[in-house]
Each structure stands twice: as structure tokens, then as C-alpha cells.
């Protein structure tokens, strides 16, 4: 039976230098289309909002991003139905998001944050106010990006990797089985 689990990207704090290339790459690929972000800084007319978050802590730094949980607290907490599972990944629809912050509170990783929403190269204003509309910004595993997660490709230290949980489990199973040859005469 195919398990069809959501893949996810994880960071390695032993390799990460905190350069934020991942955050920049994330912003770039997600804003190339409707926000016309190109190859130079001059093309950026919208706030730089990433979907993964470089996090500094006592022992170093690493990016933190969505694990695409299979019983996702953010999805289950979203009353507006703005978060759904599409092709096994947990995806936010920024058009539906009302910025209620429930998903932020539900996520145990801090992987989702409300950030300014921009479209057609400019920030979107709220209806009934001049304030900027926000949306729940979180990793979508670069679902519409050719070549897969931009953060993984952009990292100069290979500190990020895309995890296929099923394939990884099977690989570890084989190693564990072969290790049993070494301990079979334990008695």
C-alpha cells in the first residue's frame, strides 16, 4: 500500500552558517510570477517575505520550516478552510486567509507566520482599511517551482535536504536488518 506521506525539508544546524540564502531563494521563487521579481534587487517592489525562517539559538542556527504534518494542527485549526492538503502537502490559500493567527498558535514548530500579502507587484490592502493584508506564510515545498525546493538548491553549504519519509524509512530498515547480523549471537 502506498503511504503517500508529505515530503518536507529539514535543516542541519551543524552545516548552516545563517547566511539566509534559503530565505532569499524562497522569496524569489514565490514572487517571480505575480510579483515580477527578477534576477536583480531593483525588480523587488514587494516586502521580502520568506516561507522558512532562519532561526538562531544557543548552539547555532538553522532554518525552520513546515513538516507538512499528516494530522496537521494548522490545517485542523483553520476555521476558514484556508489550509488544505494538496498532493500530500499542507498548502495555504492566501486569498482565503483572514489572518486569525490560529494556525500560528497551533503549529508546534513556529513554521507559520503572518506576513504581508502582495500581488501584481504591490502589497494588497485590507478591505475597509489601508493596512496591509497578511497571509499565513509557510513552506509549500515549492509546489509550482520547477526543480523543487529552492532553499535546498540555494544553500551553499548543503545544510538543507528534502526528505522522502517513506524511502528514508526503508533505507534505515535495511541498515537495521543488516546490523542484526552482528548481534545475532548476543546470548
Amino acid at each position: 500500500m502506498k503511504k503517500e506521506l508529505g515530503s518536507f525539508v529539514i535543516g542541519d544546524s551543524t552545516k548552516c552558517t545563517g547566511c539566509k540564502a534559503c530565505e532569499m531563494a524562497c522569496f524569489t521563487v514565490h514572487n517571480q510570477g505575480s510579483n515580477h521579481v527578477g534576477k536583480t534587487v531593483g525588480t523587488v517592489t514587494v516586502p521580502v517575505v520568506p516561507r522558512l525562517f532562519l532561526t538562531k539559538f544557543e548552539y547555532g542556527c538553522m532554518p525552520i520550516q513546515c513538516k507538512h504534518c499528516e494530522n496537521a494542527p494548522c490545517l485542523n485549526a483553520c476555521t476558514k478552510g484556508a489550509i488544505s492538503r494538496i498532493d500530500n502537502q499542507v498548502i495555504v490559500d492566501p486569498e482565503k486567509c483572514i489572518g486569525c493567527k490560529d494556525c500560528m498558535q497551533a503549529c508546534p514548530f513556529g513554521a507559520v507566520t503572518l506576513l504581508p500579502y502582495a500581488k501584481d507587484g504591490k502589497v494588497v490592502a485590507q478591505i475597509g482599511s489601508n493596512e496591509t493584508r497578511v497571509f499565513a506564510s509557510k513552506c509549500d515545498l515549492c509546489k509550482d517551482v520547477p526543480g523543487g525546493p529552492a532553499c535546498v538548491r540555494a544553500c551553499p553549504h548543503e545544510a538543507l535536504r528534502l526528505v522522502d519519509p517513506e524511502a528514508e524509512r526503508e533505507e534505515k530498515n535495511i541498515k537495521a536488518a543488516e546490523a542484526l547480523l552482528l548481534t545475532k549471537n548476543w546470548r
Partner: protein
Amino acid sequence: MNYFVKGNPDLCIGCRTCMIGCVVVHEGKHIFEVDPDSYNFNPRLHMVKTAKISVPVQCKHCENPACMAACPVQAIYQEDHRVLINTDKCIGCKACATACPFGAIDIVSLAGTRQADGSERKVANKCDLCNNIAGGPACVRVCPTQALSLVTEEDLGGAMEKKRMEAARNAYMEIHPQNGG
């Protein structure tokens, strides 16, 4: 010490009876009477077959469980010589599966439960040493070649003690060969 089930690759013939036994005790015998697609076949141990080996791999019920340390919602705990998952708390984040070096944790659909958007709710699943099941681990009981055994603290401690005595005896014999048989 936590107990664990261990497979012997010399005896295992890869028949997967352990996997069936596991599902039967955890799902109930009714699975033989219902439509096979109406329940989830989620064995808690995985048969590994390679050119070198056939043996099931399952949770080792580690003493400092990496899965437990990785769980952000404290859904993994230790009780009664075993490491257990509280599936009510589990959010399916796969952190435990990533942390486990043996690939002993699967993320599986839980029958009858859905997420808020109607998609399947999946949670972590692993060997619970047949918690609350009379007779102990079903895989051990059903294996036709007795390739699986439950290892307790007494078993492991006894084996270590025996090996240490043997090592001491050998060391003694080296110095006092005249006492040897």
C-alpha cells in the same frame, strides 16, 4: 530497562507471518470477515529482504528514545518497559520517524478519522510490544521458525553476566594455565 523483540536473520524465512500476526492482534480478528479494503493494514514491524538477509525490523524501545526527544507535542512516552505513542496527541509531523535510525516508525492512516479539510488523518505507528495484549508480542508467538524473541532486562543482563564470567575465566586461565581442564 525497556524490553524489545529481536529477529534472528539465521532463522527468519521472510514469510511475513509476523506482520499478519501484528495486524490481527492490533485490529482484531474481524479483519478476516470484512472487506480487505475496509480496514488499514498497518503492521508495526517491517520485513526486510535483501540479497544478504531476511529479517523483520521493529522498534528497539531505546533507553533514551530519539523519537521521544524529537516529538514536539509529547505524544511519545515510556511506560511498563516500553516506548509508546499516544495517537490522540500525535500530529503526524514525522519528526519521530526522521529521528529513528532504524526506520521503525511509520506514519499511517487512522481508520475513520479525518482532518478538517476531509483529507486522511495520519499518525505515527510503531511496535508497542503488544501493550495490553494477553500472551505478549504476537509476532513472537506466530513465527513458524521461532526467529523472533522478546528480550527482557533479565535476558540481556543474564547474557552479559555470562559473557563477563567467560571473559574473566579466560583471562584467569592465561595466567594460571595449570588450573585449566
